[in-house]
């Protein structure tokens, strides 16, 4: 982590202090919000159904854990999310490379893809429910749909912007199509693929909640929906907090390090936090 963050002329100890300071500031903001929320509950004077206190949310979290509901819902959601992300990313990369390399395929598919890109997954889910029923097929399809387009377009841009001089040089050295793809086009497209993956991962996370609300009987999205249906608003907030924290963890533990290892390492972009 420290290697990835190391900036020229900045000592690691200073970086650690800066990281601790940033964490302390972020935590202070959250604690202030929680304190204001807890103190406002008696002032507002509404029932926990309308306005649960943070202590109610903590109690709901403990209850959901004790009863084994939250772990199962969380694992179900994560299974769907990563399966959808992986399938959507694979199809998106394959489609982007295919369209980027073949003009005929590009001309044939481009209008259709632009048309489909404009239709959000929310509009598709009721149709998917009719076709595949409630359950994992519908959710998986919705997530694949959400991830596919950002990955496809970013891969396509990456493939099209591959340096022609490098491609020509490889060809003149006798490289075949697969070697040109492996040594020139895919490395050039990698930053685009990573950007598409990051965008798609975010879209899929939002899509997951909606898909689970409509088409599932388990999962964090379903917990959010069920909480309001059964007048257990604190459970709904637990679901929302879990979603937020999970996204933070995925972003910090996977997306950012992968981005640093590819895009930033090659000097193509600078993290906004590093600039600050």
């Amino acid at each position: 982590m420290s290697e990835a963050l190391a900036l020229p002329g900045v000592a690691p100890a200073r970086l650690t202090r800066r990281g601790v300071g940033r964490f302390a500031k972020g935590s202070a903001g959250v604690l202030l919000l929680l304190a204001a929320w807890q103190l406002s509950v008696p002032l507002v004077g509404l029932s926990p159904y309308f306005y649960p206190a943070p202590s109610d949310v903590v109690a709901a979290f403990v209850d959901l854990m004790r009863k084994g509901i939250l772990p199962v819902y969380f694992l179900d959601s994560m299974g769907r999310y990563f399966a959808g992300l992986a399938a959507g990313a694979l199809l998106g990369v394959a489609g982007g490379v295919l369209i980027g390399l073949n003009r005929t395929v590009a001309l044939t598919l481009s209008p259709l893809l632009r048309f489909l890109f404009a239709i959000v997954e929310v509009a598709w889910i009721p149709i998917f429910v009719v076709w595949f029923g409630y359950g994992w097929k519908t959710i998986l399809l919705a997530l694949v749909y959400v991830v596919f387009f950002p990955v496809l377009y970013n891969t396509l841009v990456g493939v099209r912007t591959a340096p022609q001089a490098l491609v020509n040089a490889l060809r003149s050295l006798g490289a075949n199509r697969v070697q040109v793809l492996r040594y020139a086009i895919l490395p050039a497209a990698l930053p685009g693929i990573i950007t598409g993956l990051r965008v798609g991962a975010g879209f899929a996370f939002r899509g997951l909640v909606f898909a689970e609300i409509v088409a599932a009987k388990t999962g964090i999205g379903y917990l959010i929906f069920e909480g309001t249906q059964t007048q257990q608003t604190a459970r709904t907030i637990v679901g929302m907090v879990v979603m937020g924290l999970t996204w933070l963890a995925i972003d910090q533990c996977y997306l950012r390090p992968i981005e640093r290892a590819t895009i930033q390492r090659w000097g193509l972009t600078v993290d906004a936090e590093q600039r600050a």
Partner: protein
Amino acid sequence: MLRVPLIATAVIVVVLAGGWATSLVSAQRKLEPLGPTAPRGDYRVTLDFAPERFHQLRLQEAGRLVEVRGNTVFLRDVTPPALRAIAGEYWVGAVERWDGK
């Protein structure tokens, strides 16, 4: 460079493996007093709390849910693998034979 994703993945694998191992031990401990199990049997599953819809749906996957009385759920036609799966759940307090009445 990719140390953080590797550590995170290792932590997830350890947590999942730990959960799986705990579930196996827990199932063994709860089923030991029952002795050998029949190919299909009727059982009384007791929880530490009143079962919610989630628990009833999970238990229905194991067998035919006949009745819910207080914290106890009565199941028929439960196979040994399904029984082990139920007993492995940490929210299941006890599993006992039921004579079906």
